[in-house]
C-alpha cells in the first residue's frame, strides 16, 4: 500500500479496519515530504515530533478499540494564518516570524477533536493577500501553485497530505486547488468559523478545504461546519449529513453562465470546457444557459473596494508600526484602502446585496452553476499567483463554490471545473460534484508524484 496516495476517508477506513496504523501513515507522509519538499516548498513548519507523538497515541487508542472521531489518526495541513496553540503562525509575514499562539483557531480545534493529527503549517502569501509564497506548483515547478493557500494546494496536489485548510477572500482556495489539480471547497459565508484566523476582510473571508476527492471535502466540511459563538459572523443554520447525501444525486441540472466566464477564458480553456460539458450532457446532465445578472460585471470592482478598505482597517495599527516590513503588493493594497471614501465602501456593500438579490432566482432554477475555475492553467513564474476573476464572484456573494480537476492543458497543467450553488446548499453541491467526479473520472497526477512514486 502506498499510504501517501490514500485519501482522508480511505485512510480512515483502513485505520478503523486495522490495516493501516496512524504511525505508519505519518511516517509514510514524512518520508514523501522529505523527497519532494526541497523542490515544492509547501511547508513553513513541519511538526515531525508532535505528529509522531500524536500518531503513537492514536495507534494505541485504536489498539484499545477507541477512536476520537472520523479523522482519527489522519494527518492534515493547516494554512499558516490559522492560529495553532504552541505551533508558530507566521501569516507569511516577517512581522509574525516567531509568533506562537496560545490557542487554536476553532477550525483547528475541531479537526483535533475529530482525531486529526496536525502535520504542520503550509505556506501562505503574505497575510493571505498578494505577495507570493516560495511554493512551486507540483505539476510544473516553474509555475505558480496559486494563492493565497499556496502551500495547502501544493501539499495536497503533491500527495504530501490528503487534506488541508485554506481560506478565501477572493479566490484563495479554489484557484490554488485548480492550479494544483485538487478539489477545493469554499462553503457559504459563516458556515465554518473564522475564529483564530488572521483576517484579510471581515465581510469577505471564508474558510475552505483542499482535498483530492469530493468525498474527502465532504468529510472535512462535516467536521468543520457549525455555529461558533466566538465568531460573530458564524451561521446558526443546521448542519446536514454531507456524507450521507453525497451519493444521492442523479444527473444534475447545471446552469452555464457563458457571458462572463466563457468570454474571459483562454481559447484552450473554453474548448476544454465545451468538451467537459459534452461529456456531462452525454451522461445525462441537463444544461441550461443562465443570463448574466445586470450587476455581475461590477461585482469585481465592488469586491476590490470592500477588500481594500477592510484590509486597511485590519492592518491599521500594525501598518503604522511596521510599514517597512510589509512587502510591496500588500503595502500598496493597504494604502489604496486608506484612500477610499466611506460612501463608496458602503455602496460596494449595497451592490453585494443587489447582486445577491438578482442571482437568487437563477440559482433556484439549477442544482449548480458550472464555469471554468480559472481563465487559464497556472501561469508561468512565481512572482504572482494568478487571476482570481472567476472565483471572486462567488466569494463576493458569499455562496458555496467548489472546484474539481477536469482535464489537462496542453502544457501539462491541470484545469478545474467550478460549481457554485445557493447559500447553505453544500450538501447538494457536494453531491453534484461527486456525480461530475464520477462521470469525468480524472485520475492524472503530477509527473513529480508519478516519477518518485
Amino acid at each position, binding site marked *: 500500500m502506498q499510504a501517501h496516495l490514500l485519501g482522508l476517508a480511505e485512510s480512515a477506513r483502513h485505520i478503523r479496519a486495522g490495516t493501516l496504523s496512524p504511525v505508519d501513515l505519518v511516517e509514510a507522509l514524512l518520508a514523501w515530504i522529505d523527497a519532494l519538499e526541497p523542490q515544492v516548498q509547501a511547508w513553513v513548519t513541519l511538526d515531525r515530533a508532535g505528529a509522531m507523538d500524536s500518531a503513537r497515541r492514536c495507534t494505541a487508542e485504536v489498539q484499545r478499540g477507541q477512536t476520537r472521531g472520523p479523522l482519527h489518526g489522519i494527518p492534515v495541513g493547516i494554512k499558516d494564518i490559522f492560529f495553532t496553540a504552541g505551533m508558530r503562525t507566521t501569516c507569511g509575514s516577517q512581522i509574525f516570524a516567531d509568533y506562537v499562539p496560545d490557542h487554536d483557531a476553532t477550525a483547528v480545534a475541531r479537526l483535533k477533536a475529530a482525531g486529526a493529527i496536525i502535520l504542520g503549517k503550509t505556506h501562505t502569501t503574505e497575510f493571505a493577500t498578494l505577495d507570493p509564497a516560495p511554493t512551486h506548483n507540483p505539476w510544473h515547478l516553474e509555475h505558480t501553485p496559486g494563492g493565497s493557500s499556496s502551500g495547502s494546494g501544493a501539499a495536497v496536489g503533491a500527495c504530501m497530505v490528503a487534506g488541508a485548510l485554506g481560506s478565501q477572500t477572493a479566490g484563495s482556495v479554489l484557484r490554488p486547488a485548480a492550479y494544483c489539480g485538487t478539489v477545493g471547497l469554499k462553503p*457559504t*459565508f*459563516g458556515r465554518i468559523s473564522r475564529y483564530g484566523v488572521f483576517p484579510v476582510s471581515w*465581510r469577505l473571508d471564508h474558510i475552505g478545504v483542499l482535498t483530492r476527492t469530493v468525498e474527502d471535502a465532504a468529510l472535512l466540511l462535516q467536521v468543520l461546519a457549525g455555529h461558533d459563538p466566538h465568531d460573530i*459572523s458564524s*451561521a446558526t443554520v443546521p448542519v446536514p449529513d454531507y456524507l450521507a447525501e453525497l451519493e444521492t444525486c442523479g444527473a444534475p441540472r447545471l446552469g452555464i453562465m457563458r457571458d462572463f466566464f466563457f468570454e474571459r477564458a483562454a481559447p484552450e480553456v473554453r474548448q476544454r470546457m465545451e468538451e467537459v460539458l459534452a461529456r456531462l450532457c452525454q451522461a445525462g446532465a441537463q444544461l441550461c444557459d443562465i443570463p448574466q445578472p445586470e*450587476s455581475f460585471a*461590477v461585482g469585481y*470592482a*465592488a469586491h*476590490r*473596494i470592500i477588500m*481594500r478598505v477592510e484590509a486597511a482597517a485590519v492592518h491599521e495599527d500594525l501598518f503604522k508600526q511596521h510599514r517597512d516590513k510589509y512587502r*510591496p503588493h500588500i503595502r*500598496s493594497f493597504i*494604502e*489604496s484602502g*486608506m*484612500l*477610499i*471614501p466611506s460612501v*463608496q465602501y*458602503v*455602496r*460596494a*456593500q*449595497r*451592490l*453585494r*446585496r*443587489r447582486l*445577491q*438579490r438578482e442571482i437568487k432566482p437563477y440559482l433556484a432554477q439549477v442544482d449548480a452553476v458550472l464555469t471554468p475555475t480559472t481563465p487559464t492553467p497556472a501561469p508561468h513564474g512565481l512572482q504572482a499567483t494568478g487571476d482570481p476573476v472567476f472565483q471572486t464572484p462567488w466569494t463576493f*456573494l*458569499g*455562496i458555496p463554490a467548489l472546484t474539481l480537476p477536469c482535464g489537462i492543458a496542453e502544457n501539462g497543467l491541470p484545469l478545474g471545473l467550478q460549481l457554485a450553488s445557493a*447559500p447553505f446548499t453544500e450538501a447538494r453541491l457536494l453531491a453534484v460534484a461527486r456525480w461530475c467526479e464520477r462521470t469525468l473520472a480524472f485520475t492524472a497526477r503530477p509527473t513529480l508524484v508519478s516519477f518518485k512514486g
Partner: protein
Amino acid sequence: MARERSQDDFVQLLQDIARQTLGADASEARQALLRQTAEELWQVTQASVQAEDEPALLP
C-alpha cells in the same frame, strides 16, 4: 468623454487624500495604484442600488 472626466475626478480625489494621509509620492507605482482604484470607484458609482439593498452580514 464623460467616463474619462469622472475617472479623472476620482484620481484627483485620491491624489488629494493620498497626499494628506500618506505623504507626497509621485511614483509611477503610486499613480498606477490610484488609477486602478479610481476605475473601481467609478464602476461602483455608476451602478445603481435600490432602497432594499442594505448591507447585510449573511447571504
